[in-house]
């Protein structure tokens, strides 16, 4: 029974950076280098570079001589660890118990998921399907203890099996260099001819301890799973504010679409984990100098799926201009809210229609601007210009039906008219209101016909006659 899975990403930082770019850019050979004992060597390389002969551990000089067009960047363990955390959040949708092994590894406890995913193979398929969404190179291995799974995955001798015997066999064959022991210790073991882990494990433990120190007995116990060091299980954060660095300066929003897609994919998994949805995002583009360009994005209805988030954000971004080149992009989720359960059966039809109306309004607002999409409102006020109005769209229904004849159109401002041109039909209706603030109204309203026989809503006050609305 193998209770642990370990996921190792040998080229995490580079792969992740490439995942944020259009796929055609991955064809360029790229590598990450790091200072290592006074020489600069390659630590990660993409497949294009590997095919042309670049190897991990190769000196930078050699690599760039071999492949002149090789693009080199600096390796940064801190950024890699951040990415690992972001990946943990993505995988948390399928796996309950995750332990971070920064900068490149994730450990999963599978025992508790066997029933949910129908056995060991089910868990593995599930995880592989999730990883498929990301173009990352990974090694997945099972193990009867956290350490055994980790050693097999990190060494590349991965075993995916439910049987403890398979893992044991692989561990026994594992060269001592991959044991994860301190280099001095490995040296000592090799000196006495112990070239594989199996050879070490065959020896009686007491003897091993006496000869090589207490540390190795702890190691053997940990490998066997008898000693479990405390594991810090990952808990997803309840806020989402993540940033991705771009490899090159970007000058337009269209070029930012690809990294944005990835970020929104993470937003979706964040919202999915918590069973939340959101009505607002803030997208920020960070520049070399000066404040970041902020684009707040509002949705008229709560969304959580990447494709909805993306299509609405895209409409918003079409209206934006970038003044400076962008170095990094970040997305923050604002006001996440629990998802509303939607009734399924009997009264589903009207609900579905409102939802889709909200979706339409979101689309219109995104492209035209929020203030341009409006809804009609009635207020408790006798002054006509306050009684009804247009406001930025709100989905709340107003249910009052008024019992007074009112025009269907209201002019933004009353127009002065010549009384002789109008033929009074009905009235007066006196409206005196608003004495409590500066906007006092004292008017006599009439319905009257103009020379075209149109019905206007006109009023008289101490300043004269005015046209205020139309019946049409």
């Amino acid at each position: 029974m193998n209770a642990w899975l370990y996921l190792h990403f040998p080229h995490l930082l580079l792969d992740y950076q490439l995942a944020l770019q259009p796929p055609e850019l991955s064809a360029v050979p790229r590598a990450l280098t790091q200072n290592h004992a006074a020489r600069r060597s390659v630590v990660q390389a993409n497949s294009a570079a590997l095919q042309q002969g670049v190897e991990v551990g190769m000196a930078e000089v050699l690599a760039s001589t071999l492949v002149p067009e090789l693009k080199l960047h600096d390796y940064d363990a801190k950024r890699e660890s951040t990415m690992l955390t972001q990946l943990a959040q993505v995988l948390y949708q399928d796996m309950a118990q995750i332990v971070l092994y920064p900068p490149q590894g994730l450990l999963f406890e599978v025992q508790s998921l066997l029933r949910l995913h129908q056995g060991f193979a089910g868990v593995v398929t599930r995880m592989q399907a999730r990883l498929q969404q990301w173009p990352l190179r990974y090694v997945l291995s099972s193990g009867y203890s956290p350490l055994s799974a980790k050693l097999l995955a990190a060494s590349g001798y991965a075993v995916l099996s439910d049987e403890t015997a398979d893992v044991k066999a692989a561990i026994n064959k594992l060269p001592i260099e991959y044991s994860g022991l301190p280099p001095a210790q490995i040296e000592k073991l090799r000196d006495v001819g112990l070239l594989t882990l199996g050879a070490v494990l065959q020896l009686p433990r007491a003897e091993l301890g006496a000869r090589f120190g207490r540390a190795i007995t702890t190691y053997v116990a940990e490998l066997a799973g008898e000693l479990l060091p405390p594991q810090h299980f990952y808990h997803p954060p309840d806020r989402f504010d993540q940033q991705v660095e771009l490899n090159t300066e970007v000058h337009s929003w269209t070029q930012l679409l690809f990294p944005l897609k990835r970020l929104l994919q993470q937003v979706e998994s964040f919202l999915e984990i918590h069973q939340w949805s959101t009505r607002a995002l803030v997208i920020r583009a960070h520049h070399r100098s000066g404040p970041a360009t902020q684009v707040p994005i509002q949705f008229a209805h709560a969304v959580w799926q990447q494709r909805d988030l993306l299509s609405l954000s895209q409409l918003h971004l079409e209206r934006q201009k970038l003044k400076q080149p962008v170095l990094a992009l970040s997305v923050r989720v604002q006001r996440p809210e629990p998802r509303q359960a939607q009734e399924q059966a009997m009264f589903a039809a009207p609900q579905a229609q409102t939802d889709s109306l909200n979706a339409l309004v979101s689309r219109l607002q995104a492209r035209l601007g929020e203030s341009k999409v409006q809804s009609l409102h009635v207020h408790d006020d006798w002054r006509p210009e306050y009684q009804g109005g247009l406001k930025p769209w709100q989905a709340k229904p107003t249910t009052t039906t008024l019992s007074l004849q009112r025009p269907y159109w209201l002019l933004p401002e009353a127009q002065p008219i010549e009384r002789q041109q109008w033929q009074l039909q009905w009235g007066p209706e006196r409206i005196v209101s608003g004495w409590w603030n500066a906007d006092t109204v004292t008017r006599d309203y009439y319905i009257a016909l103009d020379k075209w026989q149109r019905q206007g809503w006109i009023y008289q006050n101490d300043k004269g006659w005015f046209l205020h609305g139309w019946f049409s």
Partner: protein
Amino acid sequence: MAYPAQVEALVQKGWLWQGQELPAHKAEQQFLSSGWAELDARLGGGWLQGSVNELQVQQPFIGELALLLPLLAKPQTTALWVNPPVQPYAPGLSYQHLELHQQVVVQEPDEKLALWAAEQALQSNAIDAVLLWHASLSATAVRRLQQAAEAQQKLAFVITPWQQQEEARAYVTRLQLERADSLSIRILKRRFGWPLPAFPCGVDSRLPRRRRAL
């Protein structure tokens, strides 16, 4: 009826056909009653589902909204108003039993964006009718709207001033509205029939009562 031989040939080819009240293949349910019997009778049953209709008004506010009120006041009708000439007034519309939360108003001075909004609404299944105020739509714009309306079986109304030259447009119906004592409608174009001369339409029942001039 026997035609001369040449005409018969054209009929055979389908290049010539006879004007008739209602072609057999158009079923009744494809029409949505306009709420005005006199107009329904002339349009073959009402507004054709999936059509863009043009209302040419001699002056704004002569009763064009009243003509559409029976349709808009149906409880299930959701409508998008694009660029109305002045503010639609909620208390008055509510008095006419319009569902206020089913009316979406878009004010967009940019013509391209306004048309985009109308097209989006026709493509969405949340909207039943689109009202668009526009001075003069190009043939391309009308065709695009007509395609969107037909694909989704929606209704669109374009309210526009009287058009001087009779340029061809893809509208299904073109009505010319004029007011003397009451509103009269001239049908410039309709599906399945010839243009018709002006006839009075009783839309005043949806407006405050008029007193006869003394």
